[in-house]
């Protein structure tokens, strides 16, 4: 990509816009991951909220986070592979979901 150097350095308006769009997308992605992660792991690791987060709950959270992110990566790989397969065979799935 010829605009990559410019996008890093700031420079012209076009690269500025591109960089901003990419940053927003990355931010949105991270926000979504944190939200889902917290939702699932809180549900599993803190069934009955006590006066403070116990050591056990914290350990559960760390493991749960790692597992959720592994699941995210597996889903990502499987989904992208599927989209590629479908787009080669001409199915319209990637447009609908």
């Amino acid at each position, binding site marked *: 990509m010829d605009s990559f150097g410019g996008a890093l350095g700031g420079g012209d308006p076009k690269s500025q*816009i*591109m960089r901003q769009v990419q940053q927003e997308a990355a931010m949105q992605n991270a926000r979504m991951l944190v939200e*889902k992660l917290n939702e*699932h792991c809180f549900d599993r690791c803190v069934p009955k909220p006590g006066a403070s987060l116990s050591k056990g709950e914290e350990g*559960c959270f760390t493991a749960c*986070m*790692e597992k959720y992110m592994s699941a995210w990566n597996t889903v990502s790989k499987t989904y992208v592979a599927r989209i590629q397969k479908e787009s080669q065979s001409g199915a319209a799935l990637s447009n609908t979901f």
Partner: protein
Amino acid sequence: MSGPLANVDVSKLSDRDKQELQQFVVNESQKARIQSSIHSLTDVCFKKCIPAGGVKNGKLDKYEEPCVRQCVDRFLDANLVVLRELERLRG
């Protein structure tokens, strides 16, 4: 968002730059849609494949990993069934 975009005068862009930006935004939107699907699929499949209750190990074990993969593929199959059925009802 009060980013650097506020300082960019879009009207000063050349036609070529505008065209390039338009294509860029189309591509980025496509990527964002795919990522959003990945989030909702992970949501569904984590619930289905990781047994309820506390989590002891951070790695996906030998049952969970294939379960997540199959969950994604079957969800998309199911999605296709729905679309096909709707198509049939309409036609």
